[in-house]
Protein backbone atom coordinates (compact mmCIF):
# COMPACT_ATOMS: atom_id res chain seq x y z
CA UNK A 1 0.00 0.00 0.00
CA UNK A 2 1.37 3.38 -0.93
CA UNK A 3 1.50 6.51 1.18
CA UNK A 4 -1.36 8.96 1.34
CA UNK A 5 -0.65 12.67 1.31
CA UNK A 6 -2.69 15.50 2.73
CA UNK A 7 -2.26 19.09 1.66
CA UNK A 8 -3.55 22.02 3.67
CA UNK A 9 -4.07 25.21 1.70
CA UNK A 10 -4.23 28.21 4.03
CA UNK A 11 -4.74 31.65 2.52
CA UNK A 12 -3.63 34.40 4.88
CA UNK A 13 -2.01 37.76 5.19
CA UNK A 14 1.80 37.66 5.13
CA UNK A 15 1.96 39.07 8.67
CA UNK A 16 0.09 36.02 9.97
CA UNK A 17 2.30 33.31 8.48
CA UNK A 18 4.66 33.12 11.44
CA UNK A 19 1.79 33.04 13.90
CA UNK A 20 0.34 30.00 12.17
CA UNK A 21 3.74 28.30 11.95
CA UNK A 22 4.34 28.91 15.66
CA UNK A 23 0.97 27.45 16.54
CA UNK A 24 1.78 24.49 14.32
CA UNK A 25 5.00 23.89 16.26
CA UNK A 26 3.56 24.48 19.69
CA UNK A 27 0.06 23.10 19.37
CA UNK A 28 -0.30 20.58 16.53
CA UNK A 29 3.07 18.90 16.08
CA UNK A 30 3.51 17.83 19.73
CA UNK A 31 0.49 15.57 19.23
CA UNK A 32 2.07 13.70 16.34
CA UNK A 33 3.91 11.02 18.36
CA UNK A 34 0.51 9.79 19.48
CA UNK A 35 -0.69 9.91 15.89
CA UNK A 36 2.22 7.79 14.79
CA UNK A 37 1.05 7.28 11.21
CA UNK A 38 1.07 11.01 10.40
CA UNK A 39 4.08 13.22 9.74
CA UNK A 40 4.63 16.72 8.42
CA UNK A 41 6.67 16.63 5.21
CA UNK A 42 6.83 20.21 3.98
CA UNK A 43 5.89 23.79 4.78
CA UNK A 44 5.69 26.02 1.71
CA UNK A 45 4.46 29.48 0.94
CA UNK A 46 3.32 30.92 -2.36
CA UNK A 47 4.00 33.33 -3.79
CA UNK A 48 7.35 33.35 -2.02
CA UNK A 49 7.32 37.11 -1.77
CA UNK A 50 5.35 39.78 0.10
CA UNK A 51 3.12 41.76 -2.26
CA UNK A 52 1.17 44.91 -1.43
CA UNK A 53 -2.44 44.10 -0.68
CA UNK A 54 -2.11 40.43 -1.62
CA UNK A 55 -2.43 37.42 0.64
CA UNK A 56 -0.11 34.45 0.55
CA UNK A 57 -0.92 30.78 0.68
CA UNK A 58 0.70 28.51 3.22
CA UNK A 59 0.86 24.89 2.09
CA UNK A 60 1.34 22.15 4.65
CA UNK A 61 2.08 18.74 3.18
CA UNK A 62 1.48 15.75 5.41
CA UNK A 63 2.38 12.11 4.83
CA UNK A 64 0.35 9.18 6.12
CA UNK A 65 1.96 5.75 6.19
CA UNK A 66 -0.81 3.98 4.25
CA UNK A 67 -4.59 3.68 4.10
CA UNK A 68 -4.93 1.82 7.39
CA UNK A 69 -2.67 4.51 8.83
CA UNK A 70 -5.09 7.09 7.50
CA UNK A 71 -7.84 5.71 9.72
CA UNK A 72 -5.40 5.51 12.63
CA UNK A 73 -4.56 9.15 12.07
CA UNK A 74 -8.27 10.01 12.02
CA UNK A 75 -8.96 8.13 15.21
CA UNK A 76 -6.10 9.60 17.20
CA UNK A 77 -6.79 13.30 16.74
CA UNK A 78 -6.86 14.87 20.18
CA UNK A 79 -8.48 18.13 21.29
CA UNK A 80 -5.30 20.00 20.35
CA UNK A 81 -6.13 19.39 16.69
CA UNK A 82 -9.47 21.16 16.71
CA UNK A 83 -8.02 23.89 18.96
CA UNK A 84 -5.24 24.46 16.43
CA UNK A 85 -7.59 24.76 13.48
CA UNK A 86 -9.96 27.03 15.36
CA UNK A 87 -7.04 29.36 16.02
CA UNK A 88 -5.88 29.16 12.39
CA UNK A 89 -9.38 29.95 11.20
CA UNK A 90 -9.26 33.15 13.24
CA UNK A 91 -6.14 34.17 11.34
CA UNK A 92 -6.66 32.97 7.80
CA UNK A 93 -8.87 34.23 5.01
CA UNK A 94 -9.66 30.85 3.51
CA UNK A 95 -8.70 27.26 4.10
CA UNK A 96 -9.07 23.99 2.28
CA UNK A 97 -7.69 20.50 2.79
CA UNK A 98 -6.92 18.01 0.02
CA UNK A 99 -6.31 14.29 0.33
CA UNK A 100 -4.15 12.88 -2.43
CA UNK A 101 -2.99 9.61 -3.86
CA UNK A 102 -0.14 8.70 -6.18
CA UNK A 103 -0.85 10.23 -9.61
CA UNK A 104 1.00 7.37 -11.32
CA UNK A 105 -1.65 4.94 -10.14
CA UNK A 106 -4.69 4.49 -12.41
CA UNK A 107 -7.77 6.22 -11.04
CA UNK A 108 -10.36 3.77 -9.77
CA UNK A 109 -13.59 4.01 -11.72
CA UNK A 110 -17.15 3.17 -10.87
CA UNK A 111 -17.97 -0.46 -11.57
CA UNK A 112 -20.35 0.56 -14.36
CA UNK A 113 -17.57 2.42 -16.17
CA UNK A 114 -14.80 -0.09 -15.57
Amino acid at each position, binding site marked *: *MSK*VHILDEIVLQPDDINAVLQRLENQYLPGLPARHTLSLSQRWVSPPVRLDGQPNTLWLLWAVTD*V*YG*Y*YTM*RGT*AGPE*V*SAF*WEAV*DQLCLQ*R*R*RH*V*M*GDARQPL*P*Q*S*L*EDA
Partner: protein
Amino acid sequence: MSALETVQVFLQEDADLEAAETALHTQLEAAPGLAGWHCGRNLEGCWGGGQFTVDLLWHAYADKPAMEFGSLPGFTSADAVCYQTVASGQRDPGLRQGIWRTLLLSVREGVPAAEVETFEQELLGMPRYMAAIRNWRLGRVTTPGSRWTHVWQQEYAAIDGLMGEYLLHPYHWGWVDRRFDPEFPDVWVVDTGLCHVFCALENSIIARAAANAHPDI
Protein backbone atom coordinates in the same frame (compact mmCIF):
# COMPACT_ATOMS: atom_id res chain seq x y z
CA MET B 1 -47.07 2.43 5.99
CA SER B 2 -44.40 -0.06 7.01
CA ALA B 3 -41.80 1.18 9.39
CA LEU B 4 -38.17 0.28 9.67
CA GLU B 5 -36.46 0.43 13.02
CA THR B 6 -32.99 -0.40 14.23
CA VAL B 7 -32.02 -0.77 17.87
CA GLN B 8 -28.71 -0.89 19.70
CA VAL B 9 -29.15 -2.94 22.87
CA PHE B 10 -26.68 -2.15 25.63
CA LEU B 11 -25.98 -4.65 28.39
CA GLN B 12 -23.76 -4.65 31.44
CA GLU B 13 -20.15 -5.58 30.70
CA ASP B 14 -20.47 -8.87 32.54
CA ALA B 15 -23.89 -9.73 31.11
CA ASP B 16 -24.59 -13.28 29.99
CA LEU B 17 -24.77 -12.75 26.22
CA GLU B 18 -26.15 -16.22 25.53
CA ALA B 19 -29.00 -15.68 27.96
CA ALA B 20 -29.68 -12.19 26.62
CA GLU B 21 -29.70 -13.44 23.04
CA THR B 22 -32.13 -16.22 23.87
CA ALA B 23 -34.40 -13.77 25.67
CA LEU B 24 -34.21 -11.34 22.73
CA HIS B 25 -35.23 -14.06 20.28
CA THR B 26 -38.11 -15.14 22.50
CA GLN B 27 -39.32 -11.58 22.81
CA LEU B 28 -39.06 -10.86 19.09
CA GLU B 29 -40.81 -14.07 18.09
CA ALA B 30 -43.76 -13.15 20.28
CA ALA B 31 -43.95 -9.46 19.36
CA PRO B 32 -47.16 -8.52 17.54
CA GLY B 33 -47.02 -6.35 14.43
CA LEU B 34 -43.64 -7.43 13.15
CA ALA B 35 -43.28 -8.43 9.50
CA GLY B 36 -39.66 -9.38 10.09
CA TRP B 37 -36.77 -8.98 12.48
CA HIS B 38 -33.10 -9.70 12.83
CA CYS B 39 -31.00 -9.89 15.94
CA GLY B 40 -27.22 -10.01 15.71
CA ARG B 41 -24.47 -9.98 18.28
CA ASN B 42 -22.08 -7.14 17.53
CA LEU B 43 -18.64 -8.46 16.65
CA GLU B 44 -15.21 -7.39 17.84
CA GLY B 45 -14.14 -4.14 16.21
CA CYS B 46 -17.44 -2.32 16.62
CA TRP B 47 -17.58 0.99 18.42
CA GLY B 48 -20.25 3.36 19.65
CA GLY B 49 -22.89 0.64 19.80
CA GLY B 50 -24.24 -1.92 22.21
CA GLN B 51 -23.82 -5.66 22.36
CA PHE B 52 -26.68 -6.42 19.95
CA THR B 53 -28.09 -4.91 16.78
CA VAL B 54 -31.80 -5.55 16.41
CA ASP B 55 -33.61 -4.69 13.18
CA LEU B 56 -37.38 -4.54 13.06
CA LEU B 57 -39.73 -4.37 10.12
CA TRP B 58 -43.17 -3.38 11.33
CA HIS B 59 -46.31 -4.27 9.40
CA ALA B 60 -47.94 -1.37 7.59
CA TYR B 61 -51.08 -1.81 9.62
CA ALA B 62 -49.39 -2.21 12.95
CA ASP B 63 -49.84 0.45 15.57
CA LYS B 64 -46.20 0.20 16.37
CA PRO B 65 -45.67 -0.23 20.09
CA ALA B 66 -42.47 0.92 21.69
CA MET B 67 -40.54 -2.28 22.18
CA GLU B 68 -39.24 -2.62 25.70
CA PHE B 69 -36.04 -4.50 26.37
CA GLY B 70 -35.87 -3.87 30.11
CA SER B 71 -36.51 -7.48 31.04
CA LEU B 72 -33.40 -8.74 29.24
CA PRO B 73 -30.79 -10.12 31.62
CA GLY B 74 -28.08 -7.51 32.16
CA PHE B 75 -29.98 -4.81 30.27
CA THR B 76 -28.80 -1.22 30.70
CA SER B 77 -30.29 0.78 27.78
CA ALA B 78 -31.53 0.71 24.22
CA ASP B 79 -31.03 3.22 21.43
CA ALA B 80 -33.87 2.76 18.93
CA VAL B 81 -34.47 4.75 15.75
CA CYS B 82 -37.13 4.51 13.08
CA TYR B 83 -36.11 5.62 9.63
CA GLN B 84 -37.38 6.17 6.13
CA THR B 85 -35.43 4.83 3.19
CA VAL B 86 -33.67 7.35 0.97
CA ALA B 87 -32.46 4.65 -1.41
CA SER B 88 -31.48 1.01 -1.37
CA GLY B 89 -30.00 -1.49 -3.76
CA GLN B 90 -29.46 -5.20 -4.15
CA ARG B 91 -26.76 -7.08 -5.98
CA ASP B 92 -27.24 -10.29 -4.10
CA PRO B 93 -30.74 -10.69 -2.68
CA GLY B 94 -30.04 -14.36 -2.00
CA LEU B 95 -27.05 -13.54 0.21
CA ARG B 96 -26.63 -15.98 3.10
CA GLN B 97 -24.19 -16.21 5.99
CA GLY B 98 -22.82 -12.74 5.42
CA ILE B 99 -22.10 -9.63 7.45
CA TRP B 100 -24.60 -6.91 8.35
CA ARG B 101 -23.09 -3.52 8.97
CA THR B 102 -24.91 -0.54 10.45
CA LEU B 103 -23.56 2.99 10.71
CA LEU B 104 -25.58 5.48 12.72
CA LEU B 105 -24.49 9.05 12.11
CA SER B 106 -25.65 12.55 12.80
CA VAL B 107 -25.36 15.39 10.32
CA ARG B 108 -24.28 18.54 12.12
CA GLU B 109 -26.86 21.17 12.91
CA GLY B 110 -27.04 23.96 10.39
CA VAL B 111 -25.85 22.01 7.36
CA PRO B 112 -28.02 23.18 4.43
CA ALA B 113 -30.50 20.65 3.06
CA ALA B 114 -28.85 20.70 -0.37
CA GLU B 115 -25.52 19.81 1.23
CA VAL B 116 -27.15 16.96 3.13
CA GLU B 117 -28.57 15.60 -0.12
CA THR B 118 -25.15 15.82 -1.76
CA PHE B 119 -23.65 13.92 1.16
CA GLU B 120 -26.37 11.26 0.91
CA GLN B 121 -25.64 10.77 -2.77
CA GLU B 122 -21.93 10.46 -2.01
CA LEU B 123 -22.67 7.70 0.50
CA LEU B 124 -24.94 5.99 -2.00
CA GLY B 125 -22.13 6.19 -4.54
CA MET B 126 -20.02 3.77 -2.51
CA PRO B 127 -21.64 0.60 -3.91
CA ARG B 128 -20.98 1.91 -7.42
CA TYR B 129 -17.26 1.60 -6.67
CA MET B 130 -17.18 -1.35 -4.28
CA ALA B 131 -18.34 -4.74 -5.43
CA ALA B 132 -18.01 -6.06 -1.88
CA ILE B 133 -21.13 -4.11 -0.88
CA ARG B 134 -23.68 -6.71 -1.94
CA ASN B 135 -26.85 -4.93 -0.74
CA TRP B 136 -27.32 -1.53 0.85
CA ARG B 137 -29.81 0.94 2.26
CA LEU B 138 -29.60 4.55 3.40
CA GLY B 139 -32.31 5.88 5.66
CA ARG B 140 -33.23 9.17 7.28
CA VAL B 141 -34.11 8.92 10.93
CA THR B 142 -37.71 9.86 11.74
CA THR B 143 -37.66 9.29 15.51
CA PRO B 144 -38.12 12.67 17.19
CA GLY B 145 -35.31 13.64 19.51
CA SER B 146 -32.90 10.97 18.33
CA ARG B 147 -29.24 11.90 18.36
CA TRP B 148 -28.95 10.26 14.93
CA THR B 149 -30.04 11.63 11.55
CA HIS B 150 -29.09 8.76 9.22
CA VAL B 151 -28.80 4.99 9.11
CA TRP B 152 -26.35 3.60 6.54
CA GLN B 153 -26.51 -0.18 6.21
CA GLN B 154 -24.63 -2.62 4.04
CA GLU B 155 -24.52 -6.36 3.55
CA TYR B 156 -21.28 -8.17 2.73
CA ALA B 157 -20.58 -11.76 1.82
CA ALA B 158 -17.75 -11.87 4.36
CA ILE B 159 -15.98 -9.68 6.91
CA ASP B 160 -13.14 -9.16 4.42
CA GLY B 161 -15.46 -7.04 2.29
CA LEU B 162 -16.01 -4.60 5.14
CA MET B 163 -12.47 -4.61 6.52
CA GLY B 164 -10.85 -4.80 3.09
CA GLU B 165 -12.39 -3.18 0.06
CA TYR B 166 -14.77 -0.93 1.97
CA LEU B 167 -11.99 0.60 4.08
CA LEU B 168 -9.25 0.56 1.49
CA HIS B 169 -11.06 1.97 -1.52
CA PRO B 170 -10.02 5.55 -2.42
CA TYR B 171 -13.68 6.48 -2.79
CA HIS B 172 -13.91 5.90 0.96
CA TRP B 173 -10.72 7.38 2.45
CA GLY B 174 -10.10 9.92 -0.30
CA TRP B 175 -13.64 11.16 -0.80
CA VAL B 176 -16.50 10.20 1.54
CA ASP B 177 -14.37 10.20 4.68
CA ARG B 178 -13.80 13.95 4.32
CA ARG B 179 -17.45 14.40 5.27
CA PHE B 180 -16.68 12.81 8.64
CA ASP B 181 -13.43 14.64 9.34
CA PRO B 182 -13.45 17.99 11.18
CA GLU B 183 -10.04 18.76 9.68
CA PHE B 184 -11.74 19.36 6.31
CA PRO B 185 -13.30 22.77 6.94
CA ASP B 186 -15.24 23.12 3.70
CA VAL B 187 -16.86 19.66 3.44
CA TRP B 188 -17.18 18.33 7.00
CA VAL B 189 -20.86 17.61 7.71
CA VAL B 190 -21.05 14.66 10.15
CA ASP B 191 -20.62 14.85 13.92
CA THR B 192 -17.65 12.88 15.16
CA GLY B 193 -19.72 10.60 17.41
CA LEU B 194 -20.70 7.52 15.40
CA CYS B 195 -22.12 4.09 15.95
CA HIS B 196 -20.28 1.56 13.78
CA VAL B 197 -21.48 -2.00 14.32
CA PHE B 198 -21.53 -5.23 12.40
CA CYS B 199 -22.78 -8.71 13.09
CA ALA B 200 -23.40 -12.03 11.42
CA LEU B 201 -26.20 -12.11 8.87
CA GLU B 202 -28.15 -15.27 8.10
CA ASN B 203 -30.19 -13.96 5.14
CA SER B 204 -30.41 -10.59 3.46
CA ILE B 205 -32.37 -8.14 5.62
CA ILE B 206 -32.62 -5.67 2.76
CA ALA B 207 -33.98 -8.23 0.31
CA ARG B 208 -36.53 -9.39 2.89
CA ALA B 209 -37.73 -5.83 3.42
CA ALA B 210 -37.96 -5.23 -0.31
CA ALA B 211 -39.89 -8.47 -0.77
CA ASN B 212 -42.44 -7.12 1.65
CA ALA B 213 -43.55 -5.15 -1.41
CA HIS B 214 -43.67 -1.74 0.12
CA PRO B 215 -42.42 1.18 -1.94
CA ASP B 216 -40.60 2.61 1.04
CA ILE B 217 -38.46 -0.39 1.75
